[in-house]
């Protein structure tokens, strides 16, 4: 592909996306979202719930505690996946079926991985 064509496509993407963002922010009714009252509740009354001054921690561990449990589960699962990959509990080649193809096709992915 030509260099100018690539550049023009990139510029067009930037203009379209930034224009859409500016349009969506300045459009009427942007600031009127459901649940606006609960945001002001978090700011004004949230610290009284646990007597903690860090409102972010209060929201993260108190008002959406189950979400944070899910976040920790994601972290746990990703660490377990990397652990299993690193110590050979399962191999990518066995899952994708590359090991059954004998000969030169077997050596090429190993060279690429190293």
């Amino acid at each position, binding site marked *: 592909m030509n260099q100018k064509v690539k550049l023009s496509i990139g510029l067009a993407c930037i203009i379209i996306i930034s224009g859409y963002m500016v349009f969506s922010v300045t459009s009427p009714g942007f600031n009127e979202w459901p649940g606006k009252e609960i945001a002001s509740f978090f700011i004004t009354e949230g610290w009284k719930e646990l*007597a903690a001054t*860090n409102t972010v921690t209060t929201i993260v561990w108190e008002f959406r505690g*189950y979400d944070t*449990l899910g976040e920790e589960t994601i*972290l*746990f699962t990703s660490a377990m996946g990397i652990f299993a990959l690193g110590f050979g509990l399962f191999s990518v080649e066995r899952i994708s079926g590359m090991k059954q193809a004998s000969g030169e096709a077997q050596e090429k992915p190993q060279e690429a991985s190293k």
Partner: protein
Amino acid sequence: MNVIIRTAARVMFPLILLYGIYVVVHGHTTPGGTFSGGSIMAGAFVLFTLAYGIRKTETELKESIVEVLKSVAGFVLIMLILFEFFLRAALVPTESLFSLWSGSSLMFFNIVGGIMVFTGLLMVWYTVAKSDED
């Protein structure tokens, strides 16, 4: 690594670890919390590994201990979130703001979540560092 990096890592390692523990424990009063504090604590071990190698790092904290710590912390976190109502009924939130003993049950969540983030990142780092050695 050369002697400059080794000396700097030896001096900075306990300080970075202490700062991470401070960020985790004071998560309910000052900016920070579980993820930032756990990342700082894991970064101390990353710095130590880069200076001294993975074998000397494992004399400080073995990988089997990290795995057990992560599993125990995950179990305790689930128990804390499930039985949070009883915990808050037992702990009375004091009115003294800006002190260490202000948030009623937030400190337990911060400590357990910080241990979980710390051990998770450390487990990933140990795996990567050991795969490079083979």
